[in-house]
């Protein structure tokens, strides 16, 4: 285990924590994508290129796109409702 691996592990923990703790959903989604890409590098370092490929393509790429799309939906859906009722705690 060299300095690069240590840095990678630290960056993984940091991005994971920031993605979970982010109050802004958009920021959290982008951090999740960053986490996925770092995770792909970690799998490649563990000599598991198959999982690295899948993680980069599905974990970071597609899931990230879906999350960002969901954030967009939430923003669009929340705006008109916020004027009528505030019961949903928005």
């Amino acid at each position, binding site marked *: 285990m060299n300095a690069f691996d240590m840095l990678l592990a630290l960056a993984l923990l940091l991005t994971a924590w920031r993605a979970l703790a982010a109050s802004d959903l958009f920021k959290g989604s982008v951090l999740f994508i960053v986490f996925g890409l770092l995770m792909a590098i970690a799998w490649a370092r563990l000599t598991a290129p198959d999982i*690295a490929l899948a993680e980069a393509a599905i974990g970071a*790429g597609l899931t990230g796109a879906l999350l960002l799309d969901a954030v967009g939906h939430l923003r*669009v859906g929340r705006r008109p409702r916020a004027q009528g009722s505030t019961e949903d705690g928005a």
Partner: protein
Amino acid sequence: MSRWLGVSVVLLCTLLALALVGAMLVLPDAPVRLPGEVAQRLGESGVDHAVTAVLLNFRGYDTLLEVAVLLLALLGMLAAGVAPLRPAPFAADPLLVALARTLAPLMVLVAGYLLWAGAFRPGGAFQAGAVLAAAGVLLRLAGFLPAWNAPALHLRVLLAAGFALFLLVAAAGLYFGAMLRYPQPGAGALILAIETGLTLSLGLILAGLFLAGPETPRARGGA
């Protein structure tokens, strides 16, 4: 009161974590050495890459069910109907349009390469399908592809084709001996055929998770 609750939750979680770590440390050695077994029988699988051999041959049943789960997820989404919540009309960025024009054919090429490479090096149907799906998402964002309000017949057939082909081969194996046991000389060709079908279907299914939804009037504004 709630503070004590929080403290006890943290305490219980710490205890659980410690117990899990302890259980991991005293784990007995595995009774079978799976990598060795796989390497020993790799020649019979029809492919030269251990991961593909495990996914499509030795543990083909898991992959079959995995594809079924993905297909079911998309079917559930389509059946439930997506909430008509995409009124924000977007005119795609000209830069994005140009990028999508350049990247989409390359992504299809990469998907084909990954599919072919799966037989002897890292790659395979899932990765190739994911790249295809990413190309679909990119084309959708650039405004080239319409959203799927209700997939037409040919699209639905293609969605299910990969799983159907896999199931057909598995069932044919049942007739000739055991489920998912490929005939020895043709195993490689059968695996490639299954993977080709899976790549197409998985690409469509994964892209469908993003594309399914009502068409917006100006979604194709950038094209």
